[in-house]
């Protein structure tokens, strides 16, 4: 068996700039800007060129983009679905 391969845990401790995020996810900056404006994720830092996104934000952005693309809904609709899914998950855990 080969040596374990290098992998990054996408948690709060890893941060990406807007450009890095777009490269990783293969999306246009404009889409991420719209997601931020929709309040789906909150970057660290105020000016766009200084935005930092945590690994957790990456996961949320991916989910919302998938929901939007694969169910053919607009961004507010995908954001609503995402929040309801989070709520269901919390309720399911019973707390």
């Amino acid at each position, binding site marked *: 068996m080969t040596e374990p*391969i290098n992998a990054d845990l996408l*948690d709060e401790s890893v941060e990406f700039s807007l450009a890095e995020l777009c490269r990783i996810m293969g999306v246009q900056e404009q889409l991420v800007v719209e997601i931020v404006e929709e309040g789906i994720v909150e970057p660290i830092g105020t000016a766009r060129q200084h935005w930092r996104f945590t690994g957790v934000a990456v*996961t949320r952005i991916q989910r919302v983009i998938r929901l939007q693309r694969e169910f053919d809904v607009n961004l507010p609709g995908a954001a609503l679905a995402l929040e309801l899914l989070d709520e269901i998950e919390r309720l399911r855990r019973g707390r």
Partner: protein
Amino acid sequence: MEFKDYYAIMGVARDASADEIKRAYRRLARKYHPDVSKEKDAEARFKEIGEAYEVLRDTEKRAAYDQLGRRPQGEEFRPPPDWHFEFEGDPGVAGGMHSDFFEQLFGGLGRRGARGGGFRSRGFDTTAQVEITLEEAFRGTSRTLSLQRMERGADGRVTPRVQQLNVKIPAGVTDGQQIRVPAQGEPGIGGEAPGDLFLQMRVLPHRYYRLEGRDVWLDLPVTPWEAALGETVRVPTLAGKVDLKIPKGSQTDRQLRLKGRGLPGNPPGDQFVVLKIVAPAADTPEREALYKQLAASMRMNPRQAMES
């Protein structure tokens, strides 16, 4: 390889209209989309549905597929020797992994690339679900993943190959978190970089702990006297047993916090202990007598708030 009955997968008739196919896809996607579904095999089903839809929604691909005729799902299948499918449209919608069957029939993109069409694209990102136990999440672990890869040969033909990948999973992974394995997604086309592999982590339910983010919750059964008198009890944590002093006069549902005893991280999670008072059964004459003694001397009415 196995024949795929795309009509059966989507649950539509062979003469279904484009609208009917779209409706069936939407309905199935809501049921099996991995982001919204709790079905056990959601991911595999969604990929299968996506692939079926990719073929049936495209008039060119659907016509080519229909030429193969009707065969039972799963029947051993080889493409006809004169099979030749090339398309000029997008390289597909979903971009996920396709079945061997699909790649053999419609994996014509590479041929177009090999022909010198100049098409270039970064490889698609791929995802895989990985389940670990709570103990593994606490300590860290590793997993050997078997990934089916499609390799494009010099002739543009696509052949499947299973590759084993050993991935280290760090301590402190919470449910729903992702691990990114760079450059282990689908290969790029025309010399572009490969995509990434995203591991979607699930932490399996535990026999007595519940996980919430990095915090660990535990219902702890205690006796009435342990709660009333405030005794010290042994409590399991992920790192081993600890002694916990129950505050005197505790009631059921009282929450106690063991700081930093949850999953590791920055900051680490806590363990929350929820006291659950368990009363002994009055199953011998002696115990019954004790209960009667309590009833006579305690004079307690727990339903006072409901009266008046």
